[in-house]
Structure formats: C-alpha cells, structure tokens
C-alpha cells in the first residue's frame, strides 16, 4: 500500500494526516505547536507515521507542507498554501460545500471553492488578530475560562451585549469594563461571538460565498460562534463528518496523493 502525507503547521496547533492510495485517512493527529515549526512538524509526523507503522517520512510517496510554517516541514516534497489545502480538504470531505470560513490561530479567511476543489476566490484579514483564535484566547482569559466553557456560556444568553472594539487589546479592556459594571457574563460572551461572526460575514462576502458554507480551523469547534455566524449570514452552517481542524492537513495529503499517483 502506498501512503501520502499532509502536515499543517499552524500558529497554535500542528496537524498531520496520512492517506492511503484510495484517499482514506489512515492516521491523523493534532498537537500544540512549538515555537520551532520544523520541530512541531517532526513531532506530528512521527506520531502519524508510528500509527501507520512507517519508520520515517521518506517512506511516504509524497508529503506536502501547509500552514504558516509550511516552508519548514522536514522532508516535504513541496508546500502549498493553507487556502488551497482547506478548499481541497473540505471538497474531499463534502463536495456539496461551496464556501468556507477558516478561523485559525492568527487569521480569518473566506474561501469559495470551485467544483474541482480548487480555490475560486478568497479573502483574508489583515495582520491584526481581531476575530482569530488568538482573540478568543484573550477573551477566554478575561473570563477565566477554557474555550469550550466560554462557548457554552455564550449559548446560554437570551440577549447580546454588543462589543464595539474589534482590536484584541481594546476588546479585552472593554470586556473587563462590562464585567466590572456587573453586566451578565453570558450576554457579554454572546456579544464577543457576534463581533467575530460579523468579521466572518465580511470575509465570506468578499470571497463570494453565497450558500452551502462550512467552518474549518480550530474555532470551528466553537458552537457559540457557529450559531452567531448562522444568524448573521442567514445560512445553515454545514457540519463536516471529519474534524474541521484537520481540513488543511487533509487537503495537503489529498494534493500529495494526487501528485504522488500522477508521478507513479
């Protein structure tokens, strides 16, 4: 059996996927990223290789790196941007999906997907961290909660307290002020979800997303955000059958499979 690998080195988590020649996932992993991208990739790859019973990445037919640390993946045959990989990952998971909002650790992207899984159009936030995983980390820290607890809290709100600041630093101080004023915590949390959802709305519209949309990246597991996005986009967000955080690595592995088989 031939195996193909994809390694997505993100700013917060590193994900790796190995596919067999039929495109079936035979191993995957998600680990916390280290400061050194190459080391993160090495650890993640070692984990998936062990699961498949391979000794090294060289035993893979083809390996593609993606994510912000894509240039640093050891033994990678090439690297492909995470935008293309997320599109391909989602396409092989559910070909009916035509648009993606990818919320990673340090950026937000809107991607519209063509019928063959290639990128039709995309939009991406500027260098600020507003509405990204880092933003959520800062907000959850203000609430002294974990991210799943924060998400659950926001879902319990009956009302939404609007958060005006988009900047992570200013939003954090706005939240602290609102908490100090004794405003309900769950309504503040719902306000934060709504602020991020509006930012996602802009990215989705810029990318030309009109229907059948899904969420990828670590923040896709935030149900409060999903609900807020459905509210602002007036669309039902499609749930993927595979962990949405793995989409970048899966897309990279699928590209590796296509290229590896074409070479053979």
């Amino acid at each position, binding site marked *: 059996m031939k195996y193909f690998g994809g390694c997505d080195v993100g700013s917060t988590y590193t994900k790796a996927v190995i596919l067999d020649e039929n495109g079936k996932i035979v191993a995957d992993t998600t680990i916390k990223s280290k400061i050194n991208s190459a080391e993160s990739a090495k650890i993640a790859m070692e984990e998936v290789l062990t699961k498949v019973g391979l000794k090294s990445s060289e035993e893979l037919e083809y390996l593609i790196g993606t994510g912000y640390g894509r240039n640093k993946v050891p033994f990678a045959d090439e690297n492909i*941007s995470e935008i293309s990989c997320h599109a391909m990952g989602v396409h092989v998971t559910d070909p009916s999906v035509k648009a993606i909002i990818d919320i990673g650790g340090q950026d937000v992207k809107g991607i519209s997907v063509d019928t063959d899984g290639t990128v039709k159009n995309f939009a*991406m936030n500027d260098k600020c961290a507003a509405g990204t995983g880092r933003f959520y980390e800062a907000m959850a820290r203000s609430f002294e909660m974990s991210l799943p607890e924060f998400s659950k809290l926001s879902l319990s709100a009956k009302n939404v307290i609007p958060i005006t600041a988009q900047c992570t630093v200013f939003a954090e101080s706005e939240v602290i002020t609102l908490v100090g004023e004794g405003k309900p915590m769950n309504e503040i949390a719902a306000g934060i979800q709504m602020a991020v959802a509006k930012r996602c709305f802009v990215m989705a519209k810029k990318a030309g997303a009109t229907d059948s949309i899904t969420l990828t990246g670590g923040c896709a597991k935030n149900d409060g955000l999903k609900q807020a996005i459905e509210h602002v986009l007036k669309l039902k967000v499609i749930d993927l059958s595979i962990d949405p955080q793995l989409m970048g690595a899966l897309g990279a592995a699928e590209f590796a499979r296509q290229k590896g088989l074409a070479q053979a």
Partner: protein
Amino acid sequence: MKDLKHLIEMEDLLQQAHNKLVKEAREEGRKAIGYTCYFMPEVLLDLEGCFGVRLRAPNCTTPVMATYYMSGRTCHFGRSLMERALEGGYNFLDAQMATETCTVTCRFQEHLQRMDIIQNPDFFVEFTDVPFKKTENSVEHYRKQLQAHVLDSLHEKYGIDTSDEALLKAIEQHNEVCRLVSEIGSYRKLDVPTITGYEFAVIQLTTITCPKDKILPMLRETAEEMKTRKPDLKPTWKVKVCVAGAENDDPDFIKLIESCGALVVADRYCYGSLPGREEIVVQEGQSPLDAIARHYLNTSCCPRFMPQDIMRGRKQYIADLCKEYNADGLIIESNKFCEYWSYERTIDALVIPRDYDIPTCSIEKEYINSASGQLRTRFQAFVESVELKKLHSRKGADDV
C-alpha cells in the same frame, strides 16, 4: 541566471535617498531637487546645474513622529516620507518641487514648507497645481504652472539655465534613459524572461532617484549585458503577473511576490515604468515645455482623472499590458488610506476579472510590509489558483 554586473551597486544606491551618486553630484556644486509625483516632470529637474531625486523612505519603520503631525488615518507613504524628513534624511535637498496631487504627499510637502525641517538655509518649496482633466485648457494651465513654479523659480533661486536649448538637452538625456530602461524591460516579454521583476524594479528605481548622467553608464552596460543574458535552465516561477496600483518603491515587495512563484513582468504602479519611460517627442515648431506638459498629462494613468472614458481607458491599459507581457494574472495593490487607489483598486478588482477575464488578486498593503507572512500566503494561494486554471484551460484546449 548570471548576476547583473551592476545590480549590487544599484541595490546599494537604494538604501537611502542621500546615496553615493547624489553626494557626488552635490559635491560638484549641483542642486538636489526633491519631488514625489509623476506630475513633476523629472526632465525639468535634470537641467544643467541641478538634478531630480524622487523621494523614498527605505527601511522606514513605524512613522511615529510623522503620525503626530499627520494623524494615523493617512497614507503610510506620506507619513514615512515625513518621518524620514524629521530624522534628517532629506537635509541634502536644495529644493522640493511639490505637486498638488495626492493629498497626503502634498501635506508632507506643506510641512516641509512651513516647518523648519530641512537643515539647509537656501532650501525652498514650490507647489505646482496639476489639472484634473486632459483638455487643451488643462495643458495650457499645466504648462504655465510648470513655467512659473519650476523653471522660473529654479532660474531665480539658483541661476539654472531654463532656455529652450537647455530643455532640449535635458530631453535628449531623459529619452536615452527611457530608451534603455524600456529596452531592458522588454526582456520581460519573452516566453522565458531573462530578467526578474525584482532586478528590473531596482534598475527602474535607480533611474528616478539618482542623477541621470551618473546612472546612464550603468544602464548602458546593463542593456548591453542583457543582449546575451541566458535564462535559468529550469524556471523558478509558475505564473507571470502584472503588478498595478499605488505608490510602490520597495523592490522587496516584488521579491516577495516572486518568492511565491509569480514572476512580475509588468510594473504598472506609481514609481514603476509603465507608464513613465516613454520618450518625450518635440514636434516641429513646438516649444519643449509644451511637449513636456502634454507628454506628462497624456501618458499619466493616475486615478485622479475621473472622466468615464479615461477611467475605462485605464482598465484597458492594464488588460493590454497583461496581453503584451504575457501575464497570467494581475496583482492590484494600494497603500492603506491611499486616497485615489483605494477606490481604483476596488473597481479594478471587480472590472478586470469580469470584463477581461484576467485573474486578479487585490491587496491593501503598507509602505513597508512587515506582515510578509500573511502576504506570502495570499500570493501563494493566488499563484496556485492561477496555475491550476492555466493547466485546466490547457487541458481543455488539448481535449478539443
């Protein structure tokens, strides 16, 4: 490809406005005249006894001091120039020939005039009004402005010879620079170009920031060298692109695009060569100043001109360039808070893919791009999508 003989020296000249050739020219007693805009005809500043320096602020970090004077919601380029002026980077200037064109660069030049920033007692600033139309009245107005604010002031303040003969001599030198830059740039049209967009950007920038007579020997040698330059056996690029948009004087921005697999084959941006390196033609019986005024008004593709036919002409110009230079796609950029290009970029990003079927990537950037990681992701994703579409269209053609 084999390194160009003068590339490292040219790169070095771009490290600061007050570079080696500018210093040499000033030591010879010539006056350094700063400017920022295409509408200040460089040929008028390259008369005997003076030379033009189009201002840049290389390696500028956050323009903190300039933001105090100009506010944070203004173009980063204008503020970076102001920051560099406050740091003392333009103290070599003898005059600044300003134009009332982009608001923020105009405001920067007003600050030069009103504050005692340039440490040169003879330094002065003159403002030239530039029309918003290209009619006969506009040409006449522009010509009178150039006579009064540029030629007369240079003559009165520094005794520069501004006669028709002197202008014709300057045009001759200017045209040689244009011919050589265009010749070097024409190698970008080849199926496998023998010059990179980065190399060309460095060459083009030196021609607007250094005294013409001092850069000409290097240009002549480079043009000669290009005649036999061989391309790499295996191309390092996947697609070719045209870059269009607002002010860009950062060759590293072009290098960043090229590192993502897109060879930059056409530079249709402010400080680029398209337009900008067309020769000035003086007709029989025409005054040189009239020819210059008409040339700069007619060749400009600045988005400050709003008539519908001119706006439409600008889109066509980009589409024609993409065809002429075999570009597979277009990267359209504007600086954050750029007055004219913010609008133009938005329209181009809609019109050019729709009406001309040219894949387009729209980027809002800063003067110095410290967030290169995110830009790299955008460019790489754009290259990948253009490359795939190219492959699909080739496959479609083969199937037919």
